[in-house]
């Protein structure tokens, strides 16, 4: 084994781990006497530096790989696969983590400051590893790293009953889902006798693997990963986790872990869905999950008055939309899934961050009525929030619209020979469109409170920190930019996938 090469391959992660330990060390010794907010600022600064250096490492690797350097050609049996695509997504995860750290630092739940940021950094690393993993062992280990850090983060407010309750729910259901995942993975290994995705794909394509076992494995993997992406009927943990955990954590669960999980879904299921003999059965199953998620998510969101819970249900619905791209089972589908995962994460991170800022100033969970007339007091924040919400709703010219457009087109285009609307995926797209219309109702309800309502504003004028403002602004710019000019990213993903 080439240890120096492994060192270079995991250099960004090593930097971040080092930064985490430096932050923990300083927090336990030098900063011990400071007040929580100062400590939080200092630890967040250290975490930011660590993440930025890590990001620089990722960028360096990206440049090396795109230059055709052979430094990173060894993937260690698929454990750390560095391609332009994986590196781009890993970089994106690091960027999102940077945003999350900025949003998290103003409102650390309790005195465990460095543990809070430490867990955020560790979950970031897990997501990075999951994206570069093309090996079942690495896959499971990194999923567990993500999950465990997020369980800890969700239950972080140990003095608040609801936070602990949400953490326990997340933990129990997540544990069950991990069991499903592991069972599926073991069947996959048993059927193919391979651990790397490459070998598994080859075994399935060549027909060497017993198809029945591949189908059983895939079914269990759909269940296990369905929990992770909060698709119905495996979504029951999501509303509580999003509502009751710390808001930056909810944002992180909804954005970072979603990107990583969808990336994995595409990598793992893409080849299986395209080639397996049993693809019909499997696609039927995923379609069922998709429809259920869209319907339950959107209907559930209709009657929510707590904004975080509303966003939680909307994230369930979005998981349903994204699965449409997966059932297309072709390259267009994969591209659209990845693209939508990116823009959904950006918008949802922005929306959660805004709510987090409002929550922390309000001192409690924001209800929809709390936003009445916010426009008059905080026009800037309102505009940013409007951008995120409209993107989630899929209003052109924001990126959410193009994301959904690509998903639906991929689904329709996957079966070009079908003419009638009742065949193929026309009906699925019709359901999705209908549900998008339903979703408009609750998104607009939130916006109406923000913009139109004539009541006297409940919220005072909100001072946001520079870091928060810059973060929100950047996210909004990205959401708008990807709406106006989506082709750049889409072509990059297409080129890297092909």
């Amino acid at each position, binding site marked *: 084994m080439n240890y120096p090469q492994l060192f270079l391959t995991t250099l960004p992660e090593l930097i971040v781990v080092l930064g985490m330990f430096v932050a923990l060390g300083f927090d336990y010794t030098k900063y011990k006497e400071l007040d929580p907010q100062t400590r939080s600022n200092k630890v967040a600064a250290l975490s930011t530096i660590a993440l930025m250096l890590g990001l620089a490492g990722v960028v360096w690797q990206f440049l090396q790989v795109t230059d055709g350097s052979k430094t990173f050609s060894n993937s260690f049996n698929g*454990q750390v696969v560095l391609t332009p695509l994986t590196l781009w997504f890993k970089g994106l995860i690091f960027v999102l983590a940077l945003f999350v750290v900025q949003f998290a630092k103003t409102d650390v739940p*309790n005195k465990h400051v460095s*543990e809070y940021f430490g867990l955020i950094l*560790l979950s970031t690393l897990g997501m990075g590893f999951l994206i570069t993993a093309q090996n079942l062992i690495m896959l499971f280990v*990194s999923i567990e790293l993500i999950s465990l850090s997020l369980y*800890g983060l969700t*239950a972080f407010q*140990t*003095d608040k009953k609801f936070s602990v309750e949400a953490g326990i729910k997340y933990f129990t259901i997540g544990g069950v889902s991990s069991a499903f995942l592991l069972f599926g993975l073991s069947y996959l290994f048993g059927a193919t006798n391979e651990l790397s995705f490459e070998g598994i794909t080859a075994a399935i394509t060549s027909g060497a693997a*017993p198809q029945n076992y591949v189908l059983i494995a895939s079914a269990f993997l759909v269940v296990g990963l369905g929990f992770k992406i909060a698709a119905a009927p495996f979504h029951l943990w999501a509303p509580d986790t999003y509502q009751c955990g710390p808001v930056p954590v909810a944002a992180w669960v909804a954005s970072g872990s979603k990107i990583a999980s969808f990336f994995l879904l595409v990598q793992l299921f893409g080849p299986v869905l395209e080639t397996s003999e049993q693809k019909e059965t499997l696609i039927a199953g995923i379609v069922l999950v998709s429809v259920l998620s869209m319907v339950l998510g959107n209907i559930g969101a209709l009657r929510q008055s707590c904004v975080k819970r509303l966003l939680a249900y909307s994230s369930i619905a979005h998981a349903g939309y994204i699965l449409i791209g997966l059932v297309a089972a072709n390259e267009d589908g994969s591209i659209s899934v990845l693209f939508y995962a990116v823009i959904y994460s950006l918008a949802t991170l922005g929306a959660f961050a805004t709510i987090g800022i409002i929550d922390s100033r309000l001192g409690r969970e924001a209800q929809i009525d709390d936003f009445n007339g916010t426009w008059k007091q905080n026009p800037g924040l309102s505009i940013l929030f409007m951008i995120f919400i409209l993107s989630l709703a899929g209003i052109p010219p924001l990126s959410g619209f193009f994301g959904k457009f690509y998903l639906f087109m991929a689904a329709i285009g996957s079966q070009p020979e079908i003419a009638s609307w009742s065949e193929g995926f026309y009906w699925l797209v019709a359901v999705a469109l209908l549900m998008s219309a339903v979703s408009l109702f609750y998104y607009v309800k939130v916006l109406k409170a923000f913009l139109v309502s004539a009541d006297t504003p409940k919220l005072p004028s909100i001072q946001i920190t520079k870091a928060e403002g810059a973060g929100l602004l950047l996210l909004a710019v990205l959401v708008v930019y990807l709406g106006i000019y989506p082709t750049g990213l889409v072509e990059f993903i297409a080129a890297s996938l092909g």
Partner: protein
Amino acid sequence: MTVAFYIMAAIAVLGAVMAIALRNVVHAVFSVLLFFSALAGLFILLLAEFIAVVQVLVYIGSVGILMLFAIMLTTKVTGDPTRKLLSRGWAWGGLVSGALLLAFLVPLITQSKSESNSQLSNFNPSVKDLGLTLMDPYFASVGVIALLLTAGLIAAVVAASSASGE
């Protein structure tokens, strides 16, 4: 061998079911230990002595003792008698699970040709092979496991210390 497998499997399932169904938590822990032991037995049947011994060492020897330790420190070992052990929809859940098992899994498994994997049949790794595999090709994964344990440790520190301060 097959008979031994079924006996072990039955004990394992029995232990798992009892762990969920028993109202007294201490008894539930002993059921879990029964399950762990049966699992160790299954590993021995699979000729994985190392894993079996590690199973005993880690799960029965440490995890079980930790669970007992934690439970003995709690005041109520029998739980709230007014609470039902089954949730309202248990019948439906059982029905759906049973239907899925019968309609989906059983046909798939019985239809499959039971081909023995020639590569696996003479696969008899020693502890040394295991160590070399972990330290050589899978070193990256082992590193991530180290991070995983760090995350667990940090989360445990937060969960264990009271938020109001020592």
